[in-house]
């Protein structure tokens, strides 16, 4: 066997079925070996960043490890954004990059880049394989590291000569990483303390994040049993169903009033699988000022106590711990607390100006109603992303795929590809912005090539809307370099050029029909909605602010 064949054999042994990638000189032996391994499905994207985001969404939608291939130098460097994105949002990926031959490493050879050096801070771990006989061990370790602990991307840099070398070693059955032993089971004493604190709390709130996506079952049972009010961060959407009466919405910068007020008043927060990102906390000093007990459940010890001090740290797997909590907890007696929360909810529905103008909120809500909140939703980054988080009622876990930690414009289209490959029978809805979409739109070719039936909902406001919103609020309406409409392409013709049916919607009255048309389309489709440009996402807590600084409605002059 050659190194290239060993790689593919090792991937098959890890249960890999799909690889996203783009070939090139330094990885040709691997692609040649792939030609003979028909059980590995390869999705050819038009850019390595696209392959990376597709693999990320595949991983998050399926719960498996995403795999991506790229060539050396420019190919590998094109992957970096996707690696950093996967690192921030704790997504298990294994990236294999070709490298110049070991004899040429360090000589500034053609298409050489120090890929292990460049990716060191944006991967969970990386390898440069110098000996073909190490390869099966490295692959096994890479998958183990990617999917256990706080999941993350692992990169394997594979020089071309190693891909061709003759293999004489064995495939190990086990990994031996003495420096890496994630704690899976939460400490029983800490769980006891957590249960005691919970039953004594007067104003408890459950916060779930992306690290709880695989723990939806026990968490839902826990919520049902205790009757605790629950909020979900952007990455945690769908862990608790949006229509669960205990669910208060998303907290943070564009969170609901009820979610933020509840956190502000809470005496106890049970945080599961989140890391208290600054978009959630705002000013850390003024975050949850009435908090007495934070129970912080996270599999990564470094994420506990990093931002907010935890009185009861629980290092462990979210599902394992939630299971114990669901077993051990009883109904909470918090009727007065619920009365206050219900009042906040009643007084502060999400602002929804449905005044006959075509607005993103109405479009997203209509898709939410038509799909019953059951679609797999993917987004770009910007206002449309926040509107999707606010107005699409996510019912299922692993079904809201968005770039949270890194906030990567261009995530949407390639991610919708990965999501559809992972969940072929389900409706994948991409809500994208005109700016975000144009960062990776070449992947329309990939959608077309594989006839992936993704539903592309382009919320075209002709602006880099989110930046414009900040200019509205904090830069006295100086709209510096955010105008796109004068030079946006004809998105309908563009999609059609790729062989994807498309149409345009310009009036509010057409929305419901358009939704039906999109969902009725058996294959891919792009619907461009010309939404109102002068629009803001509210509520909003300005960066570095607290719940007390929340702007719940657009200021007068921005309304026109």
């Amino acid at each position, binding site marked *: 066997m050659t190194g290239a064949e060993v790689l593919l054999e090792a991937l098959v042994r890890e249960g890999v079925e799909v690889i996203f990638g783009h070939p090139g000189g330094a990885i040709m032996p691997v692609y040649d070996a792939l030609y003979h391994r028909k059980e590995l499905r390869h999705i050819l994207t038009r850019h390595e960043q696209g392959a990376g985001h597709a693999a990320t969404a595949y991983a998050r939608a399926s719960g498996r490890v995403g795999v991506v291939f790229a060539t050396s130098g420019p190919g590998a460097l094109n992957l970096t954004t996707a690696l950093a994105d996967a690192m921030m949002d704790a997504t298990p990926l294994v990236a294999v990059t070709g490298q110049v031959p070991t004899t040429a490493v360090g000589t500034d050879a053609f298409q050489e880049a120090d890929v*292990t*050096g460049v990716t*060191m*801070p944006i991967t*969970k*771990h990386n390898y*440069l394989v110098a000996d073909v006989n190490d390869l099966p061990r490295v692959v096994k370790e890479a998958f*183990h*590291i990617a999917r*256990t602990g706080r999941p993350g991307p692992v990169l394997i840099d594979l020089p071309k000569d190693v891909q061709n070398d003759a293999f004489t070693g064995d495939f190990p059955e*086990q*990994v*031996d*990483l*003495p*420096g*890496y*032993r994630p704690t899976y089971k939460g400490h029983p004493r800490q769980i006891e303390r957590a249960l005691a604190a919970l039953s004594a709390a007067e104003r408890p709130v459950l916060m779930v994040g992306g690290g709880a996506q695989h723990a939806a079952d026990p968490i839902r049972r826990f919520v049902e049993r205790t009757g605790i009010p629950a909020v979900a961060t952007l990455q945690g959407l769908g862990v608790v169903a949006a229509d669960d009466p205990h669910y208060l919405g998303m907290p943070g910068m564009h969170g609901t009033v009820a979610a933020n007020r509840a956190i502000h008043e809470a005496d106890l927060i049970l945080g599961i699988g989140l890391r208290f990102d600054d978009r959630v906390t705002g000013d850390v000093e003024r975050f949850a000022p009435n908090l007495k007990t934070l129970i912080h459940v996270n599999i*990564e*010890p*470094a994420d506990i*106590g*990093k931002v907010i001090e935890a009185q009861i740290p629980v290092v462990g797997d979210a599902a394992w711990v939630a299971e114990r909590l669901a077993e051990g907890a009883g109904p909470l007696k918090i009727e007065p607390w619920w009365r206050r929360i219900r009042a906040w909810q009643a007084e502060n529905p999400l602002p929804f100006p449905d005044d006959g103008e075509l607005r993103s909120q109405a479009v997203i809500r209509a898709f939410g109603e038509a799909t019953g909140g059951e679609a797999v939703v993917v987004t770009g980054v910007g206002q449309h992303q926040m509107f999707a988080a606010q107005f699409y009622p996510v019912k299922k876990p692993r079904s809201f795929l968005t770039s949270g930690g890194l906030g990567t414009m261009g995530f949407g289209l390639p991610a919708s590809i990965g999501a559809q490959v992972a969940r072929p029978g389900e409706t994948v809805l991409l809500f994208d912005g005109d700016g975000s979409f144009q960062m990776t739109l070449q992947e329309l070719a990939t959608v077309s090539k594989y006839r992936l039936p993704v539903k592309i909902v382009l919320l075209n406001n002709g602006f880099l809307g989110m930046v414009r919103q900040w200019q509205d609020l904090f830069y006295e309406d100086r709209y510096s370099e955010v105008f796109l409409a004068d030079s946006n392409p004809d998105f309908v013709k563009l999609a059609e050029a790729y062989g994807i049916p498309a149409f345009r919607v310009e009036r509010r009255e057409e929305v419901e029909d358009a939704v039906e048309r999109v969902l009725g389309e058996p294959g891919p489709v792009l619907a461009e909605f010309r939404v109102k440009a002068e629009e803001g996402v509210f509520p909003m807590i300005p960066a570095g602010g607290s719940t007390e600084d929340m702007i719940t409605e657009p200021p007068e002059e921005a309304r026109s």
Partner: protein
Amino acid sequence: MKQRHVISVLVEDHPRVLTRITSMFARRGFNIDSLAVGRTHLPGVSRISFVVEGDDRTLEQVEKQLNRLIEVLKVVDHEGPRLERELALVKVRVEGIEERIELKEIAEAFRAQIVDVARHALTFEVTGHPAKIDRFLEELSNYGVLETMRTGAVAMDRGERVIKLRARREAV
């Protein structure tokens, strides 16, 4: 409150492991005052010692972020009674016999050795707690110091306390 800490880190002796650690320190904004690396009696295991300054919270993060690295086997903050040593070589210009005698006296006071003698230069070797080396260098600063090289502090707990590695486990 900021305090000086000496941290020992046992690592797998792999290429770039030091880069991983220093890159993590840089990225997280932790300052390293000194650093020393060497092999240990255990095959494949190296030991790094860091001197860092920080409050409890920072130190907790330093330790946790180090532990996150796959090749880091063990992190110990030497908080109890410890031995702490550093070695320095210092080359000083000497003009006359008088200076030579003075420098010799200073060296004796600090138990520094003269390890090289030339017509216009003396080279001292001194070991000890980094604070002692600071004081030695301060004394010499009245003379013509030409070159200094310090190794960075190394540390070990006093008494019978040792850093233990968990036995390699037949894993997962």
